[in-house]
């Protein structure tokens, strides 16, 4: 009768000494796949200008209709978005906008920490979208 007990204890001890399955979020964070469809970012040319030419294809293709763009043109007739608004509260993270973009001007980052306290804060403007998402909920406390 001791043998089944030891067999059980063996399993217990095996997991006791093996690595942890859970992670102490937010002190430690999961690495997600590179293809993770997280918060969007508007990319820039090496010269620092926004890549987007305001072709409105992302706004057109978006099934959740969460993108709205107000376009303008520079004196040399180069078009750019005067306003680029993306409502994360409506976004379903399908990634169609990235796929349709002819200029690779919108990409999705791996950032998944995008919750906010109010719906208004979920509406991102051009300036916010131009910055890569900052990691959030950092803590000084050592994980362990």
């Amino acid at each position, binding site marked *: 009768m001791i043998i089944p007990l030891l067999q059980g204890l063996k399993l217990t001890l095996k997991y006791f000494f093996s690595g942890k399955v859970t992670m102490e979020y937010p002190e430690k964070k999961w690495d997600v796949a590179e293809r993770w469809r997280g918060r969007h970012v508007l990319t820039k040319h090496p010269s620092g200008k926004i890549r987007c*030419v*305001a*072709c*409105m*294809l992302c*706004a*057109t293709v978006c099934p959740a209709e969460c993108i*709205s763009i*107000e*376009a*303008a*043109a520079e004196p040399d*007739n*180069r*078009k750019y978005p*005067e306003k680029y608004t993306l409502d994360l509260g409506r976004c379903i993270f399908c990634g169609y906008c990235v796929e349709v973009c*002819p*200029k690779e001007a919108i990409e999705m980052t791996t950032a998944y920490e995008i919750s906010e306290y109010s719906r208004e804060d979920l509406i991102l403007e051009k300036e916010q979208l131009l910055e890569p998402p900052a990691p959030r909920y950092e803590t000084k406390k050592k994980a362990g």
Partner: protein
Amino acid sequence: MPMLTIDDIDVTADEGMTILEAAGKAGIWIPTLCYYPKTSPSDSCRVCAVEIEGIGRPMTSCNTIAAEGMRVHTDTPRVRAIREEVMKLVLMDHPLDCPICPAAGECEIQNLTYRLGIHGTDLPLERRTDPIVGHWPLIEYNPNLCITCLRCVKVCHEVIGASALALKDVGYNARIGTREGDTLWCDFCGECVEACPTGAMSNKTVKRWARSWEMTKTPTICPLCSAGCRMEINVKDGRIFRITSNIDTHNSGTLCAGGRFGYDLVHHEERLDSPLLRRNGRLEPVFWEVGFTYVAENLKRIVKESGPDSVAGLASPRLTNEDCYAFQKFFRAVIGTNNIDSEARFSYLRVQRAMELTTGHMGTTGSLEDLLDTDAVLVIGIDPLEETPALGWKVKLAARRYDSNLIVANSRETSLDPFARMRLRIRPYSESELALGMMKIILDLDLWDGKFVRNNTANFLPMKNLLDKISLKGILRRTGVTEEGLREAALIFAQAPRASIIFGGDVIQQENGLQCVMNLVNLALLTGNLDRDNAGIYPIFEKGNILGLCDMGVMPEYLPGYQVAASARGTFERVWKTDLPYTKGRTVPDIVRGLETGDVRAVYVAGADPLTDYPNAGRLAAALEKAELLVVQDIFPSPTTRIAHCVFPAASFAEKDGTMTNIEHRIQRLNQAIPPLGPSMPDWNILEQVSAAMGSSMGFFDVSDVFREMTLTIPMYKGLKFQTLQGDGRIVRPFVEAGEGVRRGRRYSFAPVRTMEAPEKNRDAFPLEMTAGRSMYHFGSISTRSRNLLGLCPEGYVEINPQDADALDIGDGERVEVRSPVGSFVAPVKYSGRVSPGMVYVPANFPELGVYRLFEENTTVCRVKLTRYGEVDRV
């Protein structure tokens, strides 16, 4: 009518129809690229090739006339191969910039490539990198996107007649350029943009751009001039982005600079954005209710103290029919006075009076389309391309394509002169004499239509006696034309089987306007040009809804629909459930006199700017300042709003529903494209609110309520429905049957009148003769709020013959003071060979000049002197 089969379907084509049109009739699709229905086929792209049995090579369907027994195949492997090859050649060097191309979404290359299933081209060629032509105003040409289909060149040459664009160079280097040198001799109608199948010709003004599929198109009509062209307002997010047009409209989708580019006045930042009330000498923003209460209480007080006839109203031809109807009902039913008038007093009402007496018509007797097939056109006292471009283009087309003989009689060179067979440079004021002279010659040569005159007209003998009394020599002296010139003009006009007369501002707005119009009608009657098709009389007015304004009875003498109170009182009292005033009512000059004596204490102005648009504005301004209460509702601040006590912001044409009546009496729907900007309200609604505040609502809650009441009270509107007026609308011409009055039971009557000679006083002190007219790119004063149009014509100017300028030692562009006996203004000088020596010409569109301050009552011609203003200031 030839019968043919296309893809084994039997089609009956009209005579002269092409295979492409016959296929369209049968519902068979043939791809096209360079074909444009408005122009002749240019047959350059070959994509419309079809196979015809019995003919070895494929034929282009756009220019092959359908013939009896033809058997056409549009979908054979050979034809498909041709189409594919053509599209691959087009795509060979066409940049695939669709994401940033303004045409994407409505690009015909895009659509054809998709529909024909072409997935790219294997013909290697480098992209063109020609510089974009960006220095033209309003229009931009990108040679890299151009497929040289020649649509723009053809539409510019054939439809507009400006011929500004031309094909330059040959072969692969062929691109679109300007006709001569680097100057673009353009009317800026934007037809090339509309015609371009790609994005090569684009509208430069769309700075905030939107993709074609994002914008909602609202069909409406252009309110700027009286042609009433149909157009589509393209809106995204409550903002107008551009104006497009549809080819299936009565104007064939042709718009002018005002229609296509003038839309930006709607979003002008000077729009009134709040009701204003004068407090402590300043206009301060207030809430609507405060304004309503103020106006209602003061109107009630004044009516109580001095009776309803101490209140007067002035309306504007910019208002819709519903606004005008509500305006006159407000005055007749709520206040109880007939003191309402408008600037039509100085234009349309003279024509209406003259034509009612002589013909029973109230304005044009034919439609604009009829002008194309008329054999001779007498254009007198107007440059149609400046006042109503749509009509000007029709005349141009008639002269160029249909060989009609154009006679232009004007005191200065007009833009129709190059197309005219006969040009008569007459002295200002002498249009009436010219008509009399032509009649005299026609009678002498016995070219008049005796049968028509005997059967249909009255008063011919007095007319003949008058003509016998006048000497031809005197006429020649007063008009300043040669005898041969006058004789030839008379011959051309009399010998044409169908002839039309077009006249405008210079004729109508002079002091003898009434007599002048009568004499032109006499000329038409003498040659029998009234009962025929494609012949008639076309009076032209500058502003959008001047006919509607008078149809709605905004004048003391008539109730809506030109009904007189004596017979129609019952109808109106039953519908309005109130008594109609019995007083005669005041016209504009009477209102001014009343203000001066203090009999008129309050003035309500709807949409009008009397200080800019009425003659003798100086006297009017002094009179209006004496008014105890001046209420103005308008969309922009104007010289009149500046002296008002209360100002209400009104909605512009894009922000309201309604109907408007164009020059051919076509009643059309104006559709709301965007919500009213800021707190503005449609004019009829403001009037309803004021009357509600006065305690007697007019019962209008929606614009269709106003229209419904119009159909009850106006006989010619009977049976019309607000909803079914969409599309080309309905032509409803008022006609007064001949009673026992002047016409003595006949259908028409001559009106033997002479005109007084031009006053020659002050000849030495004021050596030059000034006429006021329009700028080609402006329509009234409202369009001077459009940045796009200001780009074409930024400010008022004085056109002067270089000969006179030399004598006065004034350089081109220098600022001069123009002084008449009653007023003066300062403007830059523009040298122009278009005005004769001894004359100056000024566009009256710019409110800051106040050109009308120079005129004494009832005229647009006066004597002026020019002096250099201050120091030299080059513009």
